[in-house]
């Protein structure tokens, strides 16, 4: 173990103990976070684009609402699938404990889904004026919906790696990254080049900031706490998640930043789309690694 220094006098080896529980929150939770980032992120992006380029994105009201609706349903479906007693999901709404981020998140996500359903209906009816009013409230609600998972991770006292300030920043950045990437792919020829450039800037900057936060934790985290040092050890050297961690960092952040610069220089829409695809796939890998590694640590 990385944090353990073996000295002859203090050499300590666990010779009899039960198996460590292992992974408690599996890949289902990764999909949960990834889909939520897309579902909330596209709403953020549509809200921004409608104010900056109303003519360019006026035809994206319905497709965006449908994409958000689908991905928030995926998020809820995988949340449900991760429960060991999924048919008791209703307990959250009847026996709610307000100290729990899970309870808050369930109510907010349900309300958000309701607003998205309304957006789809209004877009279908082409009632743009009401749509834009509902979109404002959807955008406001999307902020706590995307942040509550950070609060949940922060409530996991056992997982020192997940600190609320960093995780909340990462959740918002993930939503901006996933939202801009999805809108680049969704917009296609409907978007003006200015709108695409703006989305590229959002994608690139959110990738840069997320990468800086991960690298800060990677380099300096171990200097603060023994547990973080042990957890970061799983993504260093020949750690079990080292390859996956760097694959995610390259795919989600480094390559998209590079490709966005290239697309601006060469004015290539294909390179911009490649950056968007890499960011979306890489984000899932990054989220998965960060979810798994604290669960490898023995708690007792």
């Amino acid at each position, binding site marked *: *173990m990385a944090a353990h220094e073996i000295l002859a006098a203090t050499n300590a080896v666990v010779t009899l103990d039960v198996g460590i529980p292992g992974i408690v929150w599996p890949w289902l939770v990764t999909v949960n976070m990834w889909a939520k980032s897309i579902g909330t992120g596209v709403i953020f992006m549509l809200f921004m684009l409608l104010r900056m380029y109303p003519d360019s994105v006026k035809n994206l009201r319905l497709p965006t609402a449908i994409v958000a609706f689908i991905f928030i349903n995926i998020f809820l479906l995988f949340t449900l699938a991760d429960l060991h007693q*999924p048919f008791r999901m209703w307990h959250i709404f009847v026996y709610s404990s307000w100290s729990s981020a899970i309870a808050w998140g369930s109510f907010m996500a349900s309300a958000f889904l309701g607003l998205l359903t309304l957006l789809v209906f209004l877009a279908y009816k082409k009632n743009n004026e009401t749509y834009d009013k509902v979109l404002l409230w959807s955008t406001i609600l999307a902020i706590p919906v995307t942040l509550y998972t950070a609060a949940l991770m922060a409530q996991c006292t056992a997982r020192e790696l997940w600190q609320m300030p960093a995780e909340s920043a990462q959740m918002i950045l993930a939503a901006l990254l996933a939202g801009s990437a999805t809108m680049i792919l969704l917009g296609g020829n409907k978007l003006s080049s200015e709108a695409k450039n703006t989305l590229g800037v959002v994608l690139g900057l959110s990738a840069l900031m997320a990468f800086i936060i991960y690298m800060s934790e990677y380099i300096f985290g171990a200097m603060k706490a023994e547990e973080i040092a042990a957890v970061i050890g799983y993504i260093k050297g020949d750690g079990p998640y080292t390859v996956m961690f760097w694959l995610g960092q390259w795919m989600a952040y480094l390559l998209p930043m590079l490709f966005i610069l290239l697309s601006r220089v060469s004015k290539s829409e294909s390179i911009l789309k490649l950056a968007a695809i890499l960011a979306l796939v890489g984000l899932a890998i990054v989220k998965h690694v960060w979810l798994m590694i604290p669960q490898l640590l023995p708690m007792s």
Partner: protein
Amino acid sequence: MQLGFLVDLHLCMGCKGCEIACKVENEVPLSTWRLRVKYVDVGTFPETKRTFTPLRCNHCENAPCERICPVSALHYLDNGIVNIDKERCIGCAGCVMACPYGAIYIDPQTQTADKCTYCAHRVASSMMPACVVACPVQANIFGDLDDPTSNISKYIQANQSNVQVRKPEKGTNPHHYYVNGGNVSLNPLASFRPEGHDLFGKITSKMPVGGHH
């Protein structure tokens, strides 16, 4: 009333009687434990010793499991015990992720969270927890921490300079104390865990100690 536990590690001899008594009393399924005794070997031959550490729920004053549970399945009893309502639990495993002591598991039969309850059902009938009754050397001491005349309060007072809790830095304020514990006993990161040499950890997939035969 604030019930608490104390284990004198100097007395514990690792017989695992408490483990078995807990298993039988609470019908804990195979491959899961509410209470277990961890063995850690310390030193280098011939200067070696073995430590035994019973590990169970710490019934924290500021319990992360109670805070994260979305349906209050984990809740406090008036006597300070952190109890669990398995009928209400939805199996989100938030408590398993939150507990810094690894004391909560998902019961493979009921698919709900479960853990040590200090034998709340026995305590309600004025009986001692099963592990206390089974211990042949009275290493497990259970009682009311609010009562200065209780055995546990007297034990803590008599050993004030030598009473520890696990992971005090987490701010959970455990109501489970150890006397004569050390870093190796109480800090999981202070000892090395070689793969394949733990008796109950996926024994079918691991080689016996000593390698191939």
